């Protein structure tokens, strides 16, 4: 049930004091979101309950509210009230009381508070129902009446207003790039080595998770080192460089579309050939798969993950790696948005097999992997932090079983969550991005000064 802390929250007070006309107004976007796929999915569930154990929240807590079929039922029950026995929408439904504060509270608690939109239930549903999409549809409905949990909305609002989700001022970003350029020059022994900004005509426009310049600049330096070694023509944008898009999680398609459109603006402005998405699972899903739908336009350029780019460098011999520089036992975490929902599955394995001497898979892996519980906006929604750490135990156990000393995760959100799990469950592991591991193995012949 809802925790004590949550019950005292002004957000919940707002839900409890919703007026009937506010509640009714949510029905309009809900109906607009229905298409033949969602309607078919809403009518397909047989309540077999086999989805229960595919959800890490249910596995961790055993609570009914965490079962995907229960979450689906919340959405389905609204559809049922709005539809006829023959499946169409009622022409003049009596909307009074269709939604009430208690229903909304249950929606928020289960659909925001017990779901990372990881897609594991959708992959495992015996009927093939895309439960994840239906939950996001419900989040969109809640977003339409401003009921996104405030901490999550705050992240989105910061990105919308400041250009990146951490609110990093432009000057600070440029400063960071400058000193990282100096670091790069020292590391590779080349005064011409740079992290290029707003370079017109570059082949690749690279986008980053703002937590890199803010807290983990060496992660950005690692990628820059790889680009340098590959002699890539690349650039970052001085204004819109944020690969993250928390609109995917809040459910607000307008804001999500706006954030993704900015990266496309940068592409057009700089004339780059490909948009390269940094190591961010939901950033990949948002910008590769969802953005064209939000913006109702096909991308005229390639949208690739940095993981694909690095794998290509290795295949093409553009970078040389010395695996002996990474001798610790390494395992790989598969971020849900990159792997199960993104389709980037084997490239990171190919990279690690070339960059480390000892690589061990966790089980299950690839598209069947467990969510670390850092997605779905959970890291932002601090009100659900206890649940997040509890549900993350499955991931912690997975890691522990491998005996690995290093966990590689091609996603900064996952890295945040894995770092917390590392402390919570005393895993004693190092957590790295793919770029960091590759950079450690890079063979660069230093130029003479």
């Amino acid at each position, binding site marked *: 049930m809802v925790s004590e802390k949550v019950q005292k929250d002004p957000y919940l007070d707002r839900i409890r004091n919703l007026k009937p006309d506010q509640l009714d107004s949510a029905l309009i976007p809900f109906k607009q979101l229905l298409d033949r796929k969602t309607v078919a999915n809403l009518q397909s569930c047989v309540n077999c309950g086999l989805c229960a154990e595919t959800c890490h929240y249910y596995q961790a807590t055993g609570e009914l509210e965490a079962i995907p079929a229960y979450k689906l039922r919340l959405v389905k029950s609204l559809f049922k009230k709005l539809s006829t026995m023959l499946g169409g929408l009622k022409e003049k439904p009596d909307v009074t009381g269709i939604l009430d504060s208690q229903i909304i509270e249950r929606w928020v608690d289960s659909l925001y508070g017990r779901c990372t939109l990881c897609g594991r239930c959708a*992959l495992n549903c015996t009927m093939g129902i895309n439960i994840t999409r239906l939950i996001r549809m419900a989040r969109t409905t809640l977003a339409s009446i401003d009921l996104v949990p405030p901490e999550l909305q705050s992240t989105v609002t910061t990105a919308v207003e400041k250009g990146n989700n951490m609110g990093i001022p432009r000057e600070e970003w440029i400063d960071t790039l400058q000193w990282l350029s100096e670091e790069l020059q020292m590391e590779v022994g080349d005064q011409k080595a740079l992290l290029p900004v707003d370079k017109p005509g570059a082949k690749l426009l690279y986008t980053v998770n703002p937590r890199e310049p803010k807290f983990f600049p060496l992660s950005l330096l690692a990628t820059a080192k790889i680009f340098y070694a590959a002699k890539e023509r690349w650039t970052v944008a001085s204004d819109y460089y944020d690969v993250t898009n928390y609109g995917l999680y809040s459910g607000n398609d307008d804001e999500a579309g706006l954030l993704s459109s900015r990266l496309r603006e940068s592409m057009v402005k700089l004339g780059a050939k490909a948009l390269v998405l940094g190591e961010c699972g939901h950033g990949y899903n948002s910008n590769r798969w969802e953005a*064209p739908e939000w*913006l109702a336009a096909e991308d005229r350029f390639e949208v690739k993950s940095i993981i694909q780019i690095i794998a290509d460098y290795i295949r093409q011999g553009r970078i040389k790696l010395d695996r002996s520089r990474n001798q610790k036992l390494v395992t790989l975490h598969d971020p849900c948005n990159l*792997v199960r929902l*993104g389709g980037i599955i084997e490239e990171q394995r190919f990279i690690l097999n070339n960059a480390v001497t000892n690589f061990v898979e966790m089980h299950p892996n690839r598209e069947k992997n467990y969510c670390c519980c850092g997605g779905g906006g959970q890291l932002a929604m601090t009100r659900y932090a206890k649940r997040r750490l509890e549900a993350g135990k499955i991931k912690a156990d997975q890691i522990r079983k491998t005996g690995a000393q290093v966990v590689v995760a091609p996603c900064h959100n996952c890295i945040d969550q894995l770092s917390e799990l590392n402390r919570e469950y005393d895993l004693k592991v190092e957590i790295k991005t793919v770029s960091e591991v590759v950079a450690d193995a890079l063979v660069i012949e230093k130029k003479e000064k």
Partner: protein
Amino acid sequence: MFTILKLGVAASGLFCAGVLMVVLIRTFAFGQKPVYARPSGSSFAGVMYAFGWGMLPWEKESAAKHIWTYMGGILYHIGILVTMLFLATILLRISFPMIWLYLARILLAIGLFCGVALLIKRILKPHLRSLSSGDDYWANFLVDLFILLALISTYAEKALIPFLIIAIITFVYIPFGKLRHCAFFFYSRIIFGAYFGKRGVLPHPSRKT
């Protein structure tokens, strides 16, 4: 009486098919949003997977971890199929060799056992009970009864009358409860396969070659 019931079954069957058709048409009438993201895999291959390898228990953790429930579900549906075929032979006065009758009895008995077992599981498992509505119990009970009467009818002709009555009730009920999944199952699997296929997630690389 017997002839009237047979006509009733035919009429209720047509009613069921007709209503399901209307439900599907109304579902499709919701339309489809245009899709803009470029594919990186094959939707077609994904759909083929969804109806092929993807149906195997080890391909899904939900099935692999609950192999008896999964097998029970499969055998239950085979029992339903045999019941429908048996009903068709009654309506169309088709005779068949005794060996087929023996086989049908075995499949009906197994299907019935599985159906009842699934019903008991639904009643006994707390989380499943919490998820269930009256429709879940009624649909399961009704279909179990349908199979049971088919099985008895293979031994005693007197059971044909209640069998046909239950067939009528079942056909009339199908489009209005969870049993309508018989129409939506195929479309939902297509949506599933196309979604993960387009994104290059399924079929898994080991199945692509």
